């Protein structure tokens, strides 16, 4: 849910060294389990469908836990609590949409994408756009937009992995990047998304366990939420105001971008193809929402708890907000719990990296060749090769320039949201949406996001408080989608095949 923020926050913070025997032991155990799962999954990967969508044979529980795992990323453990510590409850507007996003995704996208996969054997998100609009051009443009976002995500993910692994093992940032990426690549290239899913299950369970334990520890250590609130209210009442220190516009803007934007996040939306039986979607939103709530308990409790502990003098003032989680873990909690959380952060970054590598490989070997009218014959072989290339390129980029990488990581979420949500989420539910509307909307999202983010990054332009490039681009993309579709609506009926029409009507 919070990928773009996660990486930049992990990059900005130099995590303190946690290289103690217990932390290293848990870290080694964690990586051993990853290797074992990957070896098992690699033996089951025989086709491109296995590689990119797990052969559409993943069970409900596994898919749910895996989806929680890739939706959260390291932000929930490091950047998020730090953000709450810095701005108060206004930071909660990033995660509050989780109450509605999963069921919203189920109603708007899950059924239709899963059924399209059933009817057409689709395996990617651009596939669905191509089938909906009968347009290789729309498919290709969506693929390009996604690839731009993935480049940013991957470079920042690689750097985030390096930061975490360096903190656990004390091997240095460079080695941390290559160790993390090497292990992720080993299971991504051999077992594809199948290895990714089952590693995500393990990683998701680890993250949930770590989150719940930290939540309980903080409440116990602070004497309950009421006592924690009393401490904060005595020193800094604005912190517990409904917007924290953010402006109302900024907080609400977070809610908008992270609720509607969730419908365009490929790492989560792509999972809809993988469910073994479409009828199992019945319990998917409930289970995923509950899983997300568990994983996000740490986000809230550490951010608020550390604020109270610092104000009451039980914890030394932090050097930077992102030190909230490490400071709590290394100074207050039992070391085993710290080890669990550090492994959980490593798990979150690796899980996200695997998912994006796999989606990127599918774009290069499947979507772009289709858009160019030259489908690849052996997608499995090419998929494995491209997986390695993307991973290595991301690791090299991550080592080059911190500021460039931070910039790349900023716009991932917004880019996916502004380019995919109208064309995919609205388009699959509105027969009046047209090919021209979809193409114009995707192009608008891509251009506006890149232009505004670049201008803001180069300080050529400053947004008013509460306005972000992501939000502006998403609004612009929606409006262009509606406007162009209305202007070209006479062509709408001709762009629907009978099976696609049925999927949209059900």
């Amino acid at each position, binding site marked *: 849910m919070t990928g773009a923020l996660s990486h930049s926050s992990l990059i900005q913070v130099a995590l303190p060294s946690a290289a103690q025997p217990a932390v290293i032991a848990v870290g080694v155990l964690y990586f051993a389990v990853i290797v074992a799962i990957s070896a098992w999954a690699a033996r089951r990967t025989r086709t491109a469908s296995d590689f990119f969508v797990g052969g559409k044979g993943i069970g409900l529980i596994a898919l749910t836990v895996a989806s929680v795992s890739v939706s959260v990323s390291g932000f929930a453990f490091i950047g998020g609590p730090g953000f709450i510590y810095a701005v108060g*409850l206004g930071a909660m507007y990033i*995660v*509050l949409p989780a*109450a*509605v996003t*999963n*069921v*919203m995704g*189920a*109603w*708007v996208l899950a059924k239709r994408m899963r*059924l399209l996969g*059933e*009817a*057409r054997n689709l395996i990617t998100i651009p596939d669905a756009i191509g*089938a909906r609009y*009968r347009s*290789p*051009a*729309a498919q290709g443009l969506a693929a390009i937009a996604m690839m731009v976002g993935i480049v940013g995500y991957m470079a920042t993910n690689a750097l985030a992995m390096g930061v975490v692994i360096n903190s656990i093992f004390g091997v240095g940032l460079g080695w941390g990047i290559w160790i993390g990426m090497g292990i992720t690549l080993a299971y991504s290239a051999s077992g594809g998304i199948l290895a990714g899913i089952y590693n995500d299950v393990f990683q998701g369970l680890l993250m949930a366990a770590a989150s719940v334990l930290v939540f309980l520890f903080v409440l116990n250590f602070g004497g309950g*939420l009421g006592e924690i*609130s*009393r401490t904060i*209210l*005595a020193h800094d*009442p604005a912190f*517990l105001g*409904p*917007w924290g220190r953010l402006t*109302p*516009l900024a907080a*609400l803007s977070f*809610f*908008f971008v992270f609720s*509607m934007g969730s*419908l365009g996040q490929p790492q989560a939306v792509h999972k809809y193809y993988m469910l073994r039986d*479409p*009828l199992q*979607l*019945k319990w998917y*939103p*409930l289970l995923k929402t509950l899983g997300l709530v568990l994983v996000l308990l740490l986000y809230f409790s550490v951010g608020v708890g550390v604020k109270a502990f610092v104000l009451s003098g039980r914890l030394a003032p932090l050097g930077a907000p992102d030190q909230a989680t490490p400071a709590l873990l290394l100074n207050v909690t039992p070391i085993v719990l710290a080890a669990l959380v550090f492994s959980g952060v490593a798990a979150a970054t690796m899980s996200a990296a695997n998912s994006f590598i796999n989606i990127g490989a599918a774009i290069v070997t499947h979507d772009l060749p289709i858009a160019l009218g030259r489908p690849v014959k052996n997608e499995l072989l090419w998929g494995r090769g491209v997986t390695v290339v993307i991973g290595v390129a991301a690791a090299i980029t991550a080592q080059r320039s911190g500021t460039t990488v931070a910039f790349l990581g900023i716009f991932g979420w917004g880019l996916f949201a502004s380019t995919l949500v109208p064309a995919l*989420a*609205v388009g699959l*539910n*509105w*027969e009046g949406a047209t*090919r021209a509307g979809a193409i114009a909307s995707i192009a608008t999202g891509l251009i506006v996001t890149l232009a505004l983010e670049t201008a803001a990054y180069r300080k050529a332009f400053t947004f*008013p408080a509460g*306005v972000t490039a992501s*939000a502006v681009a998403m*609004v612009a993309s929606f*409006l262009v989608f*509606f406007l162009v579709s209305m202007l070209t609506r006479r062509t709408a009926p001709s762009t629907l095949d009978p*099976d696609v*029409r*049925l*999927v949209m*009507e*059900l």
Partner: protein
Amino acid sequence: MVPTSEIARVDPTRRSALIALFVGILAIAGGYTAAFSQGGTPTWAPWLLALGIPITVGAIMILGAARGARGVGPLKFPFLFVVAILAIGFCAALALPATEGSLSGLWLGLPARAAVVIYGVGLLPIVVLPIAYALTFETQTLSAEDVERVRELGRAYKARSEASLDGEPAQPDDE
């Protein structure tokens, strides 16, 4: 019998949801545009988001859940509830005076305005929406018959593709 495609084209629920979605996005756009005012963000700008976001979220869920002439059936109640919860939560946070202090009363451990947002906006929809989705799944979302109908059309599509003598892809190029 009216073909399902005709039903969908005139379906008032989807049309209303689309209009609401468009209006919600326009309201949000208005809020952002106002923020660029020379005198700073006007006090009414966040209200446009506070109302536009619930409308947008509710509209897109209704758009996804609507099913032909049946509309959203019994789901209208949970949808109405959640849109109201979001709107009330955001508007209450904007409208209620800031009274947080060391003597504030706490609701489940949080000051009143924060509790409205965290528990109301963040937790109440979880109790309602996923349960409503599961309880109405077979009637409103997907049945075994639906899956079989889609599979049948998929098989027909595949057969047409394979029968194509010149090997053209079944998915035609853009016009």
